[in-house]
């Protein structure tokens, strides 16, 4: 679907000039004049047919002249063809139906289907209808169409999943489905409070109405919300979201065989720890199952892989031994605070690193000091990075600048002396908040802009680096580049609480953890995931899955569990939901200016318009000449 946009629509006013030839034509074609003339007998006796031919020619000439003026005005208005659904100007009613786990109760889902079909039927006939499904993610299930029957069939065959609820995803997908013609979004949901968790606001452009068709949640729900190793046995947490006491049987199963059964008494809205004493098989997948017929079925089971995950090692390289100088302590503590059982943190100083035997390479290295590295240590680090290693280098006081190229295997041009920042000059400003390292730091409390930097090193050459953050003064604060097959992140100040107070700020731990996750991406060997955070290749369905063998790795079994927050049916009001939406100017009425300019520059329709106008003028000239030639020579009488 395409539409026409204009970079300079004001020039379209020039199209009013078409009134000139039209008025001239109308003025000249007056045929009601009567002229007394003595020599009428000399006039041709069949002039009407000739006049009809001339009228046709005149109309053709008029059309050509109007076309030329229109083409001129349109060309000056710099037209371009808007691509995609943006061009669609027909209002659309989009039904966003919640397919999350909480909707999978038998009564809840049938009510949701009925409500969605009713919303489709209530849409004005002049509007298109579409369906968006959402849980943690929003997706266009049925693109806008005029065929209501398609929408009904789609809804009747739709089934809920095991994902969480995220209203921002629903609104975002629905807004995407609605073209620039605007329309209405009908959200069919149980209004689970968890749908707005995290404070993520859903943005609705002007011209799009949002209404809620609330579906009542099930009367009660019981769920296994956690399962973990406890010594040789297991401990599970069973949560009741029922308004009254419940009694439920919890079973432990491994390999399809029930190993333990426990009866649990649960008070209203209470939880209970259920212990299953060991020993357990060394391998396989353990399941703790409860019987709950009132609520969703997917949260009645929780899975745990019995083999421990192979941890990934994060090496913190310091200049001095951590026992003596406490260097690397803050980084170590931040990494440990992630409480990631698959992550093992090791702090080592340069001297020990120099003599350490070559073993398995770490998943990532955090370098806070290089002063004590010898030639061999520097070469090992450079080789590690070049062969695919991931390194975060902090340019603190323990970094030896002259030997730094040997450590990294690449030259980094730095000012010889650290910059002493004055005032807020060295506050950190993220250049790209979408980068995984900075994405979690967007909140006001954890903003890196609050970090007080007292000294930093100035990176002199920006070329080759991807800038992730700058200091307010413009100097580079956090940059990234590829070195060989490896990834190098450089933080221009210290991570040991000596040149700044960053390590004692709320943003430090998320920064370090997210950096660690970013640097170790692809090396994760975790075997347990919680929806919707499953890696590629792992089905987003609760239960055990065998992941196909990747290059250099063996086939393995992973488990996927539902998000326990999804089991809580607590709902908000429709008014609160509507109030949580953020209204924004309609950004979809027209593409952003830069995008429009790019499209216009690429298409260059104005040139075609001018060429077409010249062509029209040539044709007009030819038609006019034929018209004059058709009149024949006019003899001189005398």
């Amino acid at each position: 679907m395409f539409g026409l946009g204009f970079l300079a629509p004001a020039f379209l006013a020039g199209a009013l000039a078409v009134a000139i030839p039209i008025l001239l034509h109308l003025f000249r074609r007056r045929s009601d004049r009567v002229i007394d003339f003595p020599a009428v007998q000399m006039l041709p006796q069949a002039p009407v047919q000739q006049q009809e031919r001339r009228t046709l020619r005149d109309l053709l000439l008029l059309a050509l002249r109007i076309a030329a003026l229109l083409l001129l005005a349109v060309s000056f208005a710099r037209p371009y063809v808007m691509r995609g659904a943006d061009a669609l100007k027909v209002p659309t009613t989009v039904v966003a139906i919640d397919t999350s786990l909480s909707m999978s109760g038998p009564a809840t889902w049938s009510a949701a289907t009925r409500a969605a079909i009713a919303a489709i039927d209530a849409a004005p006939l002049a509007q298109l209808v579409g369906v968006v499904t959402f849980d943690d993610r929003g997706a266009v299930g049925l693109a806008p169409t005029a065929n209501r029957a398609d929408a009904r069939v789609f809804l009747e065959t739709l089934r809920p999943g095991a994902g969480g609820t995220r209203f921002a995803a629903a609104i975002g997908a629905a807004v995407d489905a609605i073209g620039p013609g605007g329309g209405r979004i009908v959200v069919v949901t149980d209004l689970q409070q968890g749908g707005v968790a995290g404070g993520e606001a859903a943005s609705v452009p002007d011209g799009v109405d949002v209404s809620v068709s609330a579906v009542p949640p099930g009367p009660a729900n019981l769920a296994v919300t956690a399962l973990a190793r406890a010594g040789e046995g297991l401990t599970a947490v069973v949560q009741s979201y029922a308004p009254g006491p419940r009694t439920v049987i919890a079973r432990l199963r491994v390999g399809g065989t029930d190993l333990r059964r426990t009866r649990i008494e649960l008070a209203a809205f209470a939880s209970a720890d259920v212990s299953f004493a060991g020993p357990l098989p060394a391998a396989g997948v353990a399941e703790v199952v409860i019987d709950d017929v009132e609520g969703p079925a997917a949260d009645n089971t929780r899975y745990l892989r019995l083999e421990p995950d192979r941890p990934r090692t994060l090496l913190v390289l310091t200049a001095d031994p951590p026992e003596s100088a406490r260097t690397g302590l803050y980084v170590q503590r931040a990494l440990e605070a992630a409480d990631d059982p698959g992550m093992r943190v090791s702090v080592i100083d340069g001297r020990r690193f120099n003599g350490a035997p070559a073993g398995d390479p770490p998943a990532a290295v955090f370098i806070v000091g290089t002063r004590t590295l010898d030639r061999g240590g520097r070469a090992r680090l450079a080789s590690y990075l070049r062969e695919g290693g991931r390194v975060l280098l902090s340019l603190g006081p323990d970094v030896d600048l002259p030997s730094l190229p040997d450590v990294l295997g690449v030259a980094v041009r730095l000012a010889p002396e650290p910059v002493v920042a004055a005032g807020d000059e060295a506050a950190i400003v993220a250049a790209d908040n979408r980068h995984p390292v900075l994405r979690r730091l967007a909140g006001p409390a954890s903003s890196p802009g609050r970090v007080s930097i007292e000294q930093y090193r100035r990176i002199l050459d920006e070329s080759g680096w991807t800038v992730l953050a700058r200091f307010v003064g413009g100097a580079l604060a956090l940059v990234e580049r590829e070195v060989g097959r490896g990834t190098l992140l450089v933080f221009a100040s210290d991570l040991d609480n000596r040149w700044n107070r960053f390590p004692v700020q709320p943003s430090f731990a998320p920064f370090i953890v997210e950096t660690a996750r970013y640097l170790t991406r692809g090396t994760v060997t975790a075997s347990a995931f919680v929806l919707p955070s499953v890696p590629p290749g792992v089905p987003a369905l609760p239960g055990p899955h065998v992941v196909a063998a990747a290059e250099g790795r063996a086939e393995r079994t992973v488990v996927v569990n539902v998000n326990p927050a999804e089991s809580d049916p607590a709902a908000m009001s429709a008014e609160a939901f509507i109030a949580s939406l953020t209204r924004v100017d309609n950004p979809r009425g027209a593409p952003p200016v830069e995008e429009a300019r790019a499209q216009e520059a690429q298409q260059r329709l104005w040139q075609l318009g001018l060429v077409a106008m010249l062509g029209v003028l040539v044709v007009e000239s030819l038609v006019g000449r034929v018209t004059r030639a058709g009149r024949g020579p006019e003899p001189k009488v005398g």
Partner: protein
Amino acid sequence: MAGPARYLDPVVLARIGSLDLKAKTVVEGVLTGLHRSPRRGFSVEFAEYRQYLPGDALSTIDWKVFARTDRHYVKKFEEDTNLDCHLLLDVSASMHYGSRGVTKAEYGCFLAASLAYLMHRQRDAVGLIAFDDRIVHRVPPSARASHLRTILLALERLPVGHRTNVAKPLGDLAKVLSKRGLVVVISDLLDDPTRVVQGLRHFRQRGTDVIVFHLLDRQELRFAFDDVARFRDVESAHEVFADPAAVRGDYLRAVQGFIDTYRRELGGAGIDYHLLDTSKPLDLALMAYLNTRGRS
């Protein structure tokens, strides 16, 4: 237009109130331009001497020459004033069309008045006949001094006629003219050329000289209309819907054929034919008359 010629412009003449003054202005203007002409004048002006022959009237002998030369010579003059001139003026409805402020009828009146003035000055007997499809007014020819005024008065009071029928009044007039003379026809000739020529031939057959002044308006000659319109015949009220730009060529060819027909047929009959554009000065018409009169 400078000097006397300025007064020959029909538009300028139209502003002059008195037809007498108009005629005088035209004629004097023309004659002023001819004062050095090799033409030998008219009527009583001297032409030549020749030797007396038996039979010549004795009164024609120039006795002064006889006294000087002792020979008899007879003094010859160019013309005697015994020519009857008839001005035939078409006053049909079509003659009352004019696109530049002067109608063909007005132009014809100017021309008739000027010719009458000129003829009167030459002491020719001049008469006036106004016609449309019949003779509507007639002033018999006379050379009396007061007759010019009678003709001018008649010209000023001519009524608007109806349809043109040049042939019929010509035929009627040819029957009643008993004396050979000069017939000047002033008309737009919007009639059947065959019948018109036939009528004029009656005069020639009786030995009468005929001059035809064919008056046509500038628009009739050029058809310079711009807008599509219904063209209504001023005599028959017949309408033709036409786009001037589209039909101009055909129209002009038809008009040229019409003129050529008259020019050819009248020339063949020994009749002088002069096409006059009513936007052009009158001196052309007077010069044409003088040429013809000089041959008479």
